[in-house]
Every structure is written in structure tokens, then in C-alpha cells.
């Protein structure tokens, strides 16, 4: 059986001269001796010639130091120790995160009163213990030194009293007040807004969502009479079809969807069930890259795809079809999808990310035909996180333009940046007499405010949320406000009543009503305490809806497909809508698909690149919808030659030092039709400008020269043979008689090996569950004090992430029926014979013939230190800084390391990272958050901050292992399976990472190591890694002969 070939970039696929040159050397460039020697850490400016002087200085300094007394260090206890707070013991507080886009119920870990980590709350039915990269990174945004620090009037600091007095006077005399916010899911904030409008009857509340779901809301209003987004049950669906819908990445509630979706992907012999996922999309999304089958179309063909899918299903189920131009994607994907959906009726689900109400009505019609309502779509708990209607936003813009608005209050929104109408809003806002802004930063919109009453960070404030009907959660402060800020709800109530209130009291007011409604048998105090502890409250909710949409009308109102080149706007997993753009963790997080950091770029197809003679980083000018930018290009498979992708969230101008000037703002490209915002543009002109930007790509770093690293099979093969695709290598060993004998690598030993009599820590990673979302990368960064190195250093391949998610592309490994003429031995005649042949591209020569840059398979593989039993790094360390533990850990002792980097050179998995600089002190790395006193607060005090010149790598979160063992010893029992979790495992929304003691026969990881799909990466070199992977299984139908 041939092994499918995987590749990381087109350069690698085609073995271009540039690629070969880039990967020829062991290191990407010369050693930075000059820089290291001139590094300004000793307070001296030195060059190489001064090296000896510095050396001499250090010697004499040591002499001097050796003669002085110890410095006096203070130990300052509290005057009055707060209840339950003890130094060195972590406290956890349940809270809620909602940035107007993504909701999460979180658990905030605090040490000595400062939040250091945010994780998902496992009691929440939405977060289920997981958290996305952005939610986790929000703890760093708390310590952003560029947050708004004081209330201001036209850029001048004023007191809160002055601000309140002046704003209240203006409000009292205002003829027309508009309060603008994102969707309000907080019952307390909603009550405050209602009261505000009651006090000022000229006030109106307008809410919008940065990435609008207005199309779904309008469609559901028309179809069901409910302007809401229902709950989707991806775990109940056997066949899932997504149409430009990144539900695993950014759509509505991605973490919740990933949790559900992955349930049917973690296939095992006991539960050999695998959902089938078909994706139609315009550019490669995270969701599409996880799909079993994937087809591409142009953004404006969205309506055609949906209408044709509707018609195919309608004709299969005997329902009436709608008038639509016939359309089919390559490989008759729509027809195949329709058949499969109908076959899985009642267990099928179709979702679309379109913001066109007509498209969504047709999608509702499809789901109605498939019997999805009540099975895979649940109307009892619709989402409240998307409430913004595009029409009302447009109304506001028109009003402001006409000068009809006196006071605009911006409640934590940044419309000038995050809306395609930003420029128009900026113009219109100039006609508004008073702009009051609650934003937490002096951002693009707040800069224009007359009064700026800065809001707390969510980790500083009391609050609540109702993300879904009947599902509530509380927010509680995990730290006192760092700056002179005020909860915006408090500000609004102050403006309403003139009295200062505490958000805590407001909250208890709301919740005492909720307590009565919940029918809780507890008294209010007990109810309050238990809810605050759990963070979440579920009250029963019911609701059904019957479909009454006019699909025929919808079909006739669809947007027309355009002929020219089109632009698709998308959100990255890292920055999302860009509200946390000044977060260096997110900026440096590699995009799962492009593996690019610190930039946005125009994704183009290989075909277009060849036509225009473009290579990665070449600048192009993009023009559409009366807006243009110059932006570097990046070649990405999986999109058509006339479709381009551009991420929003970049190009900030007033977000802070990490964000400003990084990338370009893509929001203005969005098409606005009658106020409705579509994240796409037709009639795009892309022209080469001749400029060039080096993109900080990590995709070719740590490359492993095409060795057999990822393994996959098809579901069909798996059902026949549970070990399908799990091809184990053998070593041919020369025997005494000169013949060769196949032997398992483990039988050939050059090491003596280790005995593990107690614990043996190990990890299993299911390649079939991992969606590649990158939440683990940020989790690890927060847990292990991994520094941010900045774009330049990433280009030099010196990123410090301890866990990377390798992304491999490959071509379809399916089967096809081929007809051949064959010679019949008996009749001596040529006869036609049908053969099943594998179409999987396996050989170098086959690549030359490939011109298909649209259909591509993707595999994600998280790679961290494998904690090898026969670790090659350990044998080469001259100072024994890396040694083996009796529990199977490959220990890294920083204070012993002298930085020879032999270990990194000898590591077959390329997981070791070297501290080229003192990232925490060297001013060159000013983007590293720990350079400021405030940024240092986020550091985990249980993990050493590494200095220049030492090697580091994944430790399997040894601080958590040691902590877990201590708890077990205190309790006098074995640590329970799952009690010790690594940071990456804890946060994984797909539960793809399982860590535990493989010596404990009852542990999950022990079972997974016994799984037929389990394999060790590079088994042939017999380093015996402690991390095993589980073969990816694609649910792909093979052609029957």
C-alpha cells in the first residue's frame, strides 16, 4: 500500500529552488553573535570588542558582590488577611466572558489576588470546560498598559463627578439620544437600558453585531416568527452540511459546537460511529479543513448552492421545488450531499453562515424537509448573543447624517473601526453634538468621544449574562479595578437616577427576581452563593416553532452571482473581530491554516499566483466597493482562482503598540446592500504593485522532510479493519546468513531503557478529533510563561511556543473506477474490464500532473515534547541539563543549561526552543507583555521565567503533575484519572488531547494507547515517545466496482 504524501507548502510540493535553499541548512541563518553580545542587559552598551571588557567587569562584579551583604528583601503580609486568600494557593472564580461576539462561561485562576489564567467552566452547558484562544488570552488584555486609565472630556482627564454632572445636564436637554451597543445578553444591563429609556423618552437603543447574523434573525422572523438563532445539536447529526459556515472556528458558538461535533469524531472499536461532514465554501476555513468532503464556490454563488441543494432535496423528498438557475459544484457535490442528507433524514443538519435572509429562509426550508427541527435544531433554547438587526443600524447612520441626533452613547462598541460603514459613521458622528463613550480603550471610536467614561475589563466587574434562553451566568470581579474606570452599567444608572450605585447591588436586584422565577427551593442568599460559586444557572425553557417561510419568494430574491473576481472576508481564530488586537499572544498565535503570525494577507490560489507571477509576501493592491488597500499575498490551496480571502480584525490604528499598523483593515470591503452587511465583495481588482513584505510564516519551520508523520484511513477501511492506515514500520535486520529479517523497531535497542514502576505520564492525541483551532497554543503560553518574540524573530524561526499544530495538505486518497482493455488469455480478445484504482496521489511524478488547487485534504497534528523513553536529547547534553525521570518525563533543568543546543539538534521532533534573547528584559522585545510591571502580573508563579541562553520545551505541565501528586499524597490515595490535566488538554474544545498515567490500567490514556488507531510518531527510530497519535479516519465513500 502506498503511503499518501503530505506537504506543508507549495514550495515543498514542487521542490522549488527557493524551498530547497531555505531548508538546506540546519539553521535558517547565521548565529546572531553580534546581537547577543550587544544586548543591553547589563546596562552597558557593548560591542564585540568590548566583550572582554564585559567579561572582566562580570569577574570584578562577582568579586565585589562576593564582599557585600545580602540585599534586604521584604516579606509584607496583609494587615487583615482576606477570607480564603492565602499566598501561594490559587483561587478560582466563576465568571462570564462576552465581547459582543463570543460568549464563554469561564473559571478565572487567581494567585495572590491577580488573575493569571482563564479556562472554560465545566459546569456550563455552553463552555463545557473548554475555552477558545481568544477567551483565554483575555486575561492578558486585562494587563494591557494601553487601556483607558481615567474618565476624560475631549482628551483631558476629568473627575467622575464632573463627567457625571456634565453628561446628565446634556442628557436632560437632549432632544434625541441614541445608545449603541453590541447584543446585550446581560439582564442587568438590559434593565438599566430600559430604565434609561424610561427616564429619557427620546432615547433609543440600537444594537449590532460586528459579524452580523441579521440574515438569520430576519429569516427566522419570517419562517418562525422568532428573530433569534436556535440551538444546533451537532452531536445529534449524522450528516452535517456547512455552507460558508465556520461553525468550528467563529460562527455563533464555536467552542460549544466543537464539543458536540467532536463527540461523533472520536471513533473507537466500541463505538464505531463517525458523522459525515460535507462543507461547501469559498475559502479554506477551519471547519472546511475538518470536513470529510469539501467543495468550493464563489461567494456570490452562495444563493445558487443553497437553492440547488433545496431543489435536489425537494425532488428527492417529493416537495415543491423553487425557481433557481441550475448550478453544481465540481464532482457533483451538491447532488451527493442532497442524497446523503435525505438518507439521514431526522439526523441531518444544514447550516449556513450567510447574512442574506433569503439564503437563510431556504436553509430553514431544507432543514424543515430534513426533519431537523426538534432533532438537530432546538428552538427551546435560542441564542441571545446575536440580536443586532442591520436595518436599525443603517437607520441610526441616516439619522446622524441628517443631524437629528444630539447625544450618542457608545457602550463598548467601536463602530468606526469594525463596521464597513465606519467612514460614513465617522462623518455622521461629527454632526452629533455629544458623544459619550464607555469603551475600555481610547480606540478609533473613543478618540472622537466628547466624554469618555471608560469601562472596566470584564475581570474587574460584576455582571451577568443570558447567552441562551434560560441559561444564565454571573460575572464576578477577580481583581480590583487597575485603573480609574467604572462599570458602564453603573455609569448608565448614574446618568439615569443621578445616584451612584454598585453593580453588585444592581445584580442582586436582577437576580432576586430570577430567584423567584427559577422556583428554587433555596433561600435567596443560598441561591446567590451557589450560583456565584457555580457561575451558571439553568432554568427550564421550552419552545417549538413551525416553519412558515416563503421559500419561493426567498429563491427569487437571492443575490445574483457575479462573473468577476471576488473577495471573501473572514475572521481568524486568533484575532476574530479584532477587539483584542492589542493582545500579543493572539498576534503571535499562528493561524491554523496559513501558519502565519503578525499579519493579515490576501489569500490567493496557486493558479492566480502563477498567472500573475506572485509569490508569498508580494504586495498587491486590492480594490473593491470603493475602498482599496495594499496587502501582501499568501498562496493557500482550497479556493478558486478568482476568489481571494482577507481576514478582518487587523489594521487597527488606535488599539495599542502590538496592534497598530499590523495588517490592513478589511471591514470596509464588506458589501452593504440596504444596510445589510455581507462579508464579501464582488468586482474585485487585484494588481501587483512590486512591494514585498516578509510574512512571519511558521509553516515550514521545524519541517521533518516528508517522513511518515500523519496517518489516515477512510471510514470504510476502518470498518473492515480497525488498524487500517496504521502501518507500522519494520527494520530490515541483516542475519548471520546474509538474509534480512523484518523486525519491529522496539526490538532493536541501543539504549538500555528505563523502568517505570510508579507513574508513567503519557498523552494520546486523536487526530480525528483535533480541529486545529489553536486554543491549546494559547493555553500553554499562559500556563508556562512562554514569551512573545515578535514578527522579526518568528521570521528567523525563533518562535517559542511549546506546542505547535502542524498542518499538512494532501490530495484526496479516494478511489475511482477505471475501465481498461485487457487481453483475455482464453479467447485472445481484448475485453473491457473495470478496476477499482486508488486515486490518492502518492508519487513525486504524479504531482507534476496536478492542476487541482481547490480540492485538498488537511490534517492537523499538535506536536509538543514527546517525552521520549529513549530520548536523543538526553544523550547529547554535555552538562546533564536534560535528564530522564522515573515517571517518564524528559526533564529540562534551566539553571543547569549552558545553551549548547545539542539537544535541539538531536531532537527528531524539533520541539525544543532556545532563548536567543532575554525576552523579558531586552527592550527590543517590547511586545513581550512581561516587560512591564503590569504585564508581569500574568506570569504563572509556579513556572520559572527562562533567561537568555537556555533551552526550553514542553514539560507535560510538570507543575500540575507535582501539584496533583501533592494533593493525592495529602489525601493518601492514587491521583484520580483526569485529576491532573495539562493546560492544552484542559482547554481543548474537541477533547482531542488525553493525558494521564499509562501505568494506571483504568486510565483513559491507557485505553487509548491500546486503541487500534494508536501509533507513535517516527516509530522506526525507536525513541519511544510518550505521546501517541490516533489515526485520522475520513468518512469518505469509496467508489464501488
Amino acid at each position, binding site marked *: 500500500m502506498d503511503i499518501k504524501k503530505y506537504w506543508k507548502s507549495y514550495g515543498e510540493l514542487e521542490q522549488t529552488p527557493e524551498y530547497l535553499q531555505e531548508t538546506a541548512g540546519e539553521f535558517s541563518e547565521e548565529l546572531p553573535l553580534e546581537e547577543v553580545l550587544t544586548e543591553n542587559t547589563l546596562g552597558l552598551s557593548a560591542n564585540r570588542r568590548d566583550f572582554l571588557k564585559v567579561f572582566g567587569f562580570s569577574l570584578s562584579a562577582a568579586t565585589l558582590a562576593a564582599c557585600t551583604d545580602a540585599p534586604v528583601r521584604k516579606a509584607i503580609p496583609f494587615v487583615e*488577611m482576606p477570607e480564603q486568600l*492565602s499566598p501561594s494557593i490559587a483561587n478560582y472564580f466563576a465568571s462570564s466572558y462576552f465581547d459582543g461576539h463570543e460568549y464563554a462561561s469561564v473559571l478565572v485562576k487567581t494567585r495572590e489576588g491577580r488573575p493569571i489564567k482563564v479556562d472554560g467552566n465545566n459546569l456550563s452547558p455552553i463552555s463545557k470546560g473548554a475555552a477558545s484562544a481568544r477567551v483565554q488570552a483575555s486575561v492578558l488584555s486585562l494587563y494591557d498598559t494601553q487601556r483607558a486609565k481615567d474618565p476624560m472630556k475631549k482628551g483631558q482627564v476629568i473627575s467622575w463627578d464632573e463627567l457625571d454632572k456634565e453628561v446628565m445636564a446634556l442628557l436632560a436637554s437632549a432632544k434625541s439620544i441614541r445608545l449603541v451597543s453590541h447584543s446585550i445578553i446581560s439582564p442587568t444591563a438590559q434593565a438599566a437600558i430600559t430604565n434609561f429609556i424610561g427616564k429619557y423618552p427620546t432615547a433609543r437603543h440600537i444594537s449590532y453585531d460586528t459579524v452580523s447574523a441579521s440574515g438569520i434573525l430576519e429569516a427566522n422572523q419570517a419562517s418562525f416568527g422568532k428573530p433569534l438563532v436556535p440551538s444546533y445539536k451537532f452531536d445529534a447529526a449524522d450528516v452535517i452540511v456547512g455552507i460558508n459556515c465556520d461553525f468550528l472556528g467563529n460562527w455563533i458558538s464555536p467552542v460549544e459546537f466543537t464539543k458536540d461535533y467532536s463527540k461523533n469524531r472520536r471513533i473507537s472499536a466500541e463505538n464505531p460511529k463517525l458523522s459525515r461532514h460535507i462543507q461547501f465554501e469559498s475559502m479554506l476555513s477551519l471547519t472546511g479543513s475538518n470536513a470529510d468532503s469539501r467543495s468550493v464556490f464563489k461567494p456570490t454563488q452562495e444563493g445558487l448552492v443553497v437553492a440547488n441543494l433545496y431543489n435536489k432535496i425537494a425532488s428527492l423528498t417529493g416537495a415543491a421545488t423553487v425557481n433557481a438557475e441550475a448550478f453544481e459544484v465540481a464532482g457533483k457535490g451538491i447532488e451527493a450531499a442532497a442524497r446523503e442528507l435525505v438518507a439521514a433524514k431526522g439526523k441531518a443538519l444544514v447550516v449556513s453562515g450567510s447574512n442574506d435572509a433569503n439564503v437563510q429562509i431556504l436553509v430553514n426550508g431544507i432543514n424543515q424537509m430534513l426533519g431537523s427541527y426538534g432533532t438537530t435544531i432546538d428552538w427551546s433554547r435560542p441564542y441571545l448573543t446575536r440580536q443586532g438587526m442591520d436595518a436599525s443600524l443603517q437607520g441610526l447612520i441616516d439619522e446622524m447624517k441628517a443631524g437629528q441626533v444630539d447625544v450618542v452613547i457608545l457602550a463598548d462598541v467601536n463602530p468606526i473601526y469594525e463596521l464597513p460603514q465606519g467612514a460614513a459613521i465617522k462623518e455622521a458622528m461629527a454632526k452629533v453634538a455629544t458623544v459619550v463613550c464607555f469603551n475600555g480603550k481610547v480606540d478609533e471610536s473613543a478618540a472622537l468621544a466628547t466624554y469618555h467614561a471608560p469601562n472596566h475589563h470584564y475581570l474587574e466587574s460584576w455582571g451577568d449574562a443570558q447567552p441562551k434562553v434560560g441559561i444564565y451566568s454571573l460575572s464576578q470581579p477577580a481583581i480590583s479595578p487597575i485603573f480609574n474606570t467604572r462599570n458602564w452599567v453603573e455609569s448608565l444608572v448614574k446618568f439615569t437616577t443621578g445616584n451612584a450605585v454598585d453593580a453588585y447591588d444592581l445584580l442582586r436586584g436582577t437576580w432576586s427576581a430570577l430567584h423567584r422565577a427559577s422556583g428554587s427551593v433555596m433561600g435567596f442568599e443560598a441561591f446567590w452563593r451557589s450560583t456565584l460559586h457555580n457561575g451558571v444557572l439553568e432554568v427550564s425553557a421550552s419552545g417549538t416553532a413551525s416553519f412558515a417561510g416563503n421559500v419561493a419568494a426567498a429563491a427569487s430574491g437571492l443575490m445574483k452571482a457575479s462573473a468577476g473576481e471576488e473577495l471573501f472576508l473572514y475572521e481568524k481564530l486568533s484575532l476574530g473581530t479584532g477587539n483584542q488586537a492589542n493582545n500579543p499572544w493572539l498576534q503571535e498565535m499562528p493561524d491554523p491554516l496559513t501558519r502565519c503570525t503578525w499579519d493579515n494577507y490576501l489569500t490567493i490560489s496557486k493558479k492566480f499566483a502563477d498567472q500573475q507571477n506572485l509569490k508569498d509576501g508580494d504586495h498587491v493592491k486590492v480594490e473593491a466597493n470603493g475602498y482599496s488597500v495594499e496587502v501582501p499575498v499568501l498562496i493557500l490551496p482550497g479556493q478558486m482562482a478568482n476568489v481571494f480571502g482577507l481576514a478582518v480584525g487587523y489594521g487597527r490604528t488606535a488599539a495599542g503598540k502590538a496592534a497598530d499598523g499590523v495588517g490592513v483593515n478589511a471591514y470596509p470591503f464588506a458589501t452593504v446592500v440596504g444596510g445589510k452587511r455581507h462579508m464579501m465583495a464582488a468586482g474585485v481588482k487585484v494588481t501587483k504593485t512590486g512591494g514585498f513584505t516578509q510574512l512571519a510564516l511558521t509553516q515550514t519551520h521545524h519541517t521533518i522532510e516528508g517522513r511518515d508523520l500523519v496517518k489516515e484511513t477512510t471510514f470504510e477501511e476502518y470498518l473492515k479493519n480497525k488498524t487500517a492506515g496504521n502501518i507500522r514500520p519494520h527494520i530490515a535486520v541483516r542475519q548471520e546468513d546474509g538474509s534480512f529479517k523484518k523486525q519491529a523497531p522496539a526490538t532493536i535497542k541501543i539504549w538500555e531503557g528505563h523502568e517505570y*514502576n510508579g507513574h508513567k505520564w503519557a498523552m494520546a492525541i486523536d487526530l480525528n478529533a483535533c480541529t486545529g483551532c489553536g486554543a491549546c497554543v494559547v493555553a500553554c503560553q499562559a500556563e508556562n510563561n512562554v514569551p512573545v518574540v515578535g514578527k522579526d524573530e518568528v521570521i528567523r524561526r525563533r518562535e517559542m511556543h511549546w506546542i505547535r499544530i502542524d498542518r499538512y495538505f494532501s490530495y484526496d486518497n479516494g478511489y475511482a473506477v477505471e475501465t481498461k482493455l485487457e487481453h483475455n488469455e482464453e479467447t485472445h480478445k481484448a475485453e473491457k474490464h473495470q478496476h477499482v484504482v486508488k486515486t490518492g496521489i502518492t508519487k513525486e511524478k504524479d504531482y507534476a500532473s496536478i492542476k487541482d488547487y481547490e480540492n485538498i485534504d488537511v490534517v492537523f497534528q499538535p506536536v509538543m515534547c514527546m517525552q521520549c523513553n529513549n530520548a536523543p536529547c538526553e544523550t547529547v547534553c554535555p552538562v546533564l541539563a536534560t535528564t530522564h525521570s522515573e515517571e517518564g518525563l524528559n526533564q529540562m533543568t534551566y539553571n543547569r543549561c549552558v545553551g549548547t543546543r545539542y539537544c535541539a539538534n538531536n531532537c527528531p521532533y524539533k520541539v525544543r526552543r532556545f532563548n536567543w534573547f532575554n525576552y523579558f528584559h531586552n527592550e527590543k522585545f517590547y511586545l513581550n507583555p512581561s516587560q512591564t510591571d503590569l504585564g508581569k502580573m500574568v506570569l504563572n508563579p509556579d513556572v520559572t521565567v527562562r533567561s537568555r541562553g537556555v533551552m526550553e520545551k514542553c514539560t507535560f505541565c510538570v507543575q500540575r503533575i*507535582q501539584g496533583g501528586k501533592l494533593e493525592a499524597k*495529602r489525601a493518601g490515595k492514587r491521583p484520580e484519572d483526569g485529576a491532573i490535566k495539562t493546560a492544552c488538554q484542559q482547554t481543548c474544545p474537541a477533547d482531542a488531547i488525553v493525558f494521564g498515567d499509562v501505568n494506571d490500567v483504568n486510565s483513559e490514556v491507557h485505553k487509548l494507547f491500546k486503541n487500534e488507531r494508536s501509533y507513535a510518531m517516527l516509530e522506526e527510530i525507536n525513541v519511544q515517545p510518550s505521546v501517541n497519535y490516533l489515526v485520522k479516519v475520513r468518512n469518505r465513500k469509496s467508489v464501488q466496482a
Partner: protein
Amino acid sequence: MKNDIPLTETPICMNRKPLAKIFASITGLVLMAGAVMFGSSAQAQPDGKAIYEANCVACHKIDADLVGPALKGVTERLDEAYLIKWIRNSQSVINSGDKYANDLYKKWNNVQMPAFDLSDDEIKAVLAHIKAESAAAAAPAASAAAGASTGTTAVAAEEKGVLDNKVFLYTVITLGAVILLLLVFIQTRLKGVLDSKVSAGEVDLDKLEDRSVKFKLSPLQRLGLIMGSLAFGFVAFYAYAYNNIGMQQGYAPKQPIAFSHELHAGQHQIACTYCHTGAERGKSATIPSVNVCMNCHNQIKKDAPEIKKIWSAWENKKPIEWIRIHNLPDFAYFNHAQHYKVAGIECQKCHGPIQEMKVVAQHAPLTMGWCIDCHRETKIDANNGYYKAVHAKNPKFKDGVTIGQMGGLECSKCHY
């Protein structure tokens, strides 16, 4: 981390004397043994003593008034049922209008004794202990002196250690002096013999001098020798200096408040964890917050000058800035709960005879060698259910296995 701390901040102490260290560690061991024995014999006492020490000693003494009255003979003065009621909730007894209780309450400035949630048996055990202690206090000298004797012996042992040390040094110096005198005497005698031989013409001095030429050095050689010796001196000095960087053994800074462990932990026998609450639960043993001091000192010795400092801190809500004595480097992880709670190690093992210290000094060197030595010698608690469950099949796991043998010397146990 290395290079992370500017060199001038590196804590340095040069007071380690290798010889003294050996003696100190020997005496320290004797001391430890004493402390462990003392500790374990204390554990063997009936519950009453433990409960008494955990709950009562903060305010009561047997033979002297403290926050509350002296307890000597209380079991004779009052009947048991009354005392149980009183201990469990003194306020209810006072509220019941009981005259004795109200008089007592008034006499002690209306300081309320907190309620203790103890069972009848536990209170009875405490009363029995008080009774026994009262009797002991009544009997002149005998048992009270015996109780403290272990401590004094330990101190004597250490002083003796220092003494031995000095005697050894004097002996060496005396011996050296004797040898020197002897050598001078021999040299004089030999010179005398030589002179007599020369004058007698038996020896030709010129020839002798010729031979001595061999030992003459050229200027270059002389320079080399000087440079060599200097280099050796430097290397030796640096080896010594680097070996001592970060060592603060014996560091006993003057604290902002002259708090005496000798008084609190020694005389009043307040349990260490009464103040250092973190020792049972976490990495840090914690230095008590001012409110812990105020538990007692809102009554006791309010007017003493040092106590007034606590009051000032309390009233101004200004924390007391203690000088930190034990400074482990950031790259070494140490957890008090692991050692105190799990391993059951006495505080004194690392902190020395803290109950004797008027001013706390760093007892242990806190070097890695010192940590490792203890891990090599100390046996694990084989009765801990954790070891029984995890290491059941481990051939190394047998009686008397040390921490070191069970992986306690591995880097990642302390460095991550």
C-alpha cells in the same frame, strides 16, 4: 535564572566556615534527633494535650494569667459540667445570669472567651490535661524542668559544638607553633653543625653554593612563579566566592518589630501553624497578617512599646514590612505542605531551634546540596495510601526506602 538578576543584587554571604559547618551539622543532627524525639513523645500524649495546645494556649497558661485567667486548679474550683458548658459557649453561661461567670467576665474587662465546638470527651480530656499540668506545676521543679530539659540540652549541645570547634582550632594552632619552634631549633642546630664543619675545613662552602645555584630562578621564571601563584590564588578565591554566592546561613536581620519566637513558640508553646497557616496547605508557610497578632494582642501587653507597633499597623492599616530571611532562588520550587503535612517533618528540621530564637536566624544553608542530602537520608512515609496505591508493584518500594531512591533527587522535582 542565571543572568536574570543583576549581579549586584545577588545575595552574598561569606560567613560559612567549612569546619564549623561540619561541626554545626553534627550538632544539628544531635539537635534534630532531640527535637524529633521530643516531638514524637509529645504526639504520644493523650488528645487532651493536643487540643489544649491548639485551642487554649493562645490565651491561657497554667500558672499565670494571660488573656484569660491562670488555669491551675480550675478543675477543683468548678465542677466538670459547668466547665463543659462554659468552654462550649461562655456567653450563654454569662447570659444565663450566673454570678460567678458574670464576675469573672467583668474582672477580665468583658473579654469574651470564644465558643469551642468540642465534644464532651474532648473537653474532658482537656480538663484532665489541665489537672495533670496543675499538679505538675504544684510539685516543685520536678516535671516542669524535665519538660524543658530537652531544649536546654540541645542548646548546650550546640554550644558544646562551637566549643569543640574552638578547642580544635586552638589545638591546631598550638601544634603548629610547637612544630615551628621545633623546626627553628633543628635549623639552628644544623647551622651550628655546618659552621663548625666549615671552620674545621671539612666542608667547602663554595661547592655547596654551586649546588645551590640550581635553585636560583631567572627573572622570567620568578615572574612566572609570581603570576602562577597569583592565578592560583585568584582561582581558589573565586572557587570559594562562587561556592558561597547566595548563601545566607546565619542571616539574622533586625526586624521592624522585635518579635521573639522564643517567647511565643518556646515559653507559650503556641503551635507554629497557629500563625503560619499556609504550612499545612501550600507552597508558602505565610507570615501572619496583623489581624492574627491582634487575636491576642488586642488584650495582652497593649502598652508595651513593641506591641504598640502592631497597634499602629492595625489602626493605620499599614502592613508590617518584615525582613525576609529565607530566600530560595526563583528557579527552585519548594512546597511547605509537601514537607510539613505529607512528610510530617518538624519545622525545626530546617528552621533550627526556632523556639529558642529571640531573633530568627537562617539555620540551614538552603543550598541544593543541603536539600539533596536530606532527600538521600530521609525515608518516605510508606504508610501513605498514595505510595501503597501507586508503587504497589515497584520493587524499590520497601521498608526504609528513602526519598532519593524513589526519584526524589530528580531535577524536575524542584526545577520547572
